[in-house]
């Protein structure tokens, strides 16, 4: 998978240039924005250590020449770390102390969050859609509107939202029935379960009907129910 954002490409190019030099590099950005993947593309075999595990980090630094430090913001007393004669590639969140970064690192890259990389959203969406269809054995054309892609947690939520969309698009009536059966089996209780559970069927039915047919008049005809009954139901479910 080749990301298209120019800033990402520049970071990759720059990492490739420094990959044989003994310099300290840090990539700063939001969680799941792809920092780790960028680093792994250029340094696929390097030892990786978590910044929160200071003992392991110090012993690895004493042993290895080339180290990836994940979650560098978790390192307590980063100034005590000795980077001399080392190739350090650190990954950190935006919350890192700027002075520490400035003193410890020669190359400082800021990876923008996915929401600022529309070209990458497109590439990643295509990739995850193909992957989800293969994984879930779905063999049908699926188009996911941009509005249904969740990028609030960058690549993590994007991938989850695409898998969910593929799964929803592939359900047939027996899958839905199976899903409802399991849901009811788990949730039915109390003394008003019939009315409460009916909403799970009726509410999406009315919402979809209104979206598809536009007017209550047409919908009442399609559903084969009285217009007053439909209006009452819409009111009951707070659908305008």
């Amino acid at each position, binding site marked *: 998978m080749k990301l298209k954002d120019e800033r990402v490409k*520049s*970071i990759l190019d720059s990492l490739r*240039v420094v990959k044989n*030099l*003994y310099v300290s590099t840090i990539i700063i950005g939001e969680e799941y924005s792809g920092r780790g993947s960028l680093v792994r593309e250029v340094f696929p075999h390097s030892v990786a250590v978590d910044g929160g595990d200071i003992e392991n980090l110090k012993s690895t630094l004493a042993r290895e020449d080339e180290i990836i430090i994940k979650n560098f913001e978790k390192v307590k007393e980063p100034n005590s770390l000795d980077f*001399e*004669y080392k190739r350090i590639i650190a990954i950190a969140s935006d919350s890192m102390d700027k002075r520490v970064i400035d003193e410890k690192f020669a*190359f400082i890259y800021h990876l923008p969050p996915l929401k600022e990389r529309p070209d990458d959203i497109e590439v990643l969406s295509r990739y995850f859609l193909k992957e989800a269809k293969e994984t879930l054995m779905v063999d049908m054309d699926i188009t996911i509107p941009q509005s249904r892609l969740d990028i609030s947690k960058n690549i993590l939520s994007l991938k989850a939202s695409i898998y969910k969309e593929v799964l929803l698009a592939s359900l047939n009536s027996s899958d839905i029935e199976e899903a409802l059966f399991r849901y009811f089996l788990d949730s039915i209780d109390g003394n008003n379960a019939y009315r409460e559970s009916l909403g799970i069927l009726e509410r999406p039915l009315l919402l979809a009907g209104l979206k598809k047919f536009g007017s209550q008049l047409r919908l009442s005809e399609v559903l084969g129910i009285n217009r007053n009954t439909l209006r009452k139901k819409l009111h009951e479910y707070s659908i305008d």
Partner: protein
Amino acid sequence: MNTVSIDYQFIVDSDSSPVVLFNYEGKIVWLNNSAEILLGYVEKRELFNLALRYAPKSFGTNTILLNLNYKHLEFYAISVSYNSEEWVALRLYYRPRTTKERKLNSKNLITTDINLLLEASINLFKINYNRKLSLLVDKDLPKIKIDQNSFSRLLRKSLESFRQSSRIDISLKITIGEFMVIEKRRYQVARLKIEANGRYTDSDRDILYLSENLDVMVILDENSITLDIPIIN
């Protein structure tokens, strides 16, 4: 001894004091090696004006004490001489330096292609700088022993000083005839010059500190940063 056969010009040529000979229009008709270096730091017109201003009233020589600074070159006196209306000579006297003896900071020295470090640093800088940047490098520059990490930090901070400049010109080349003496050994000099139409000075302290530790001589100007890097190999 018959002194007629002695090549006096050779002596002046290799004199450490810059000597420049101008014609009456201010054109340079002759200059020695040291003056060639000086002209890398000052316009010839400025030197000619200096000669006119301090020329003796009639034929002869006028030597006066005068503090002159051209970047890192410091002079304490000049002589202006002429015995014809056709030419005037200017000689500048270097101020003796009482600088501390430079010691080679041998920590973390790794043989390095500094063109590569420069390329990586420019790549990083260009992520947030999208205006014109020209680069002129000497591809035959020999590899240099340097602390790669500290030198990269120095490059980053130097480049960031030009983050708002509308155009940046960068050159990296070996200087001719200039040397740096560290621990009594002479080293050739690679000169990295970054020029623009102004720059920020917020990182100057860091630039000076890093340069000092790297044995790099730095000149911080209003519009440029010059790093003289000893070619230690």
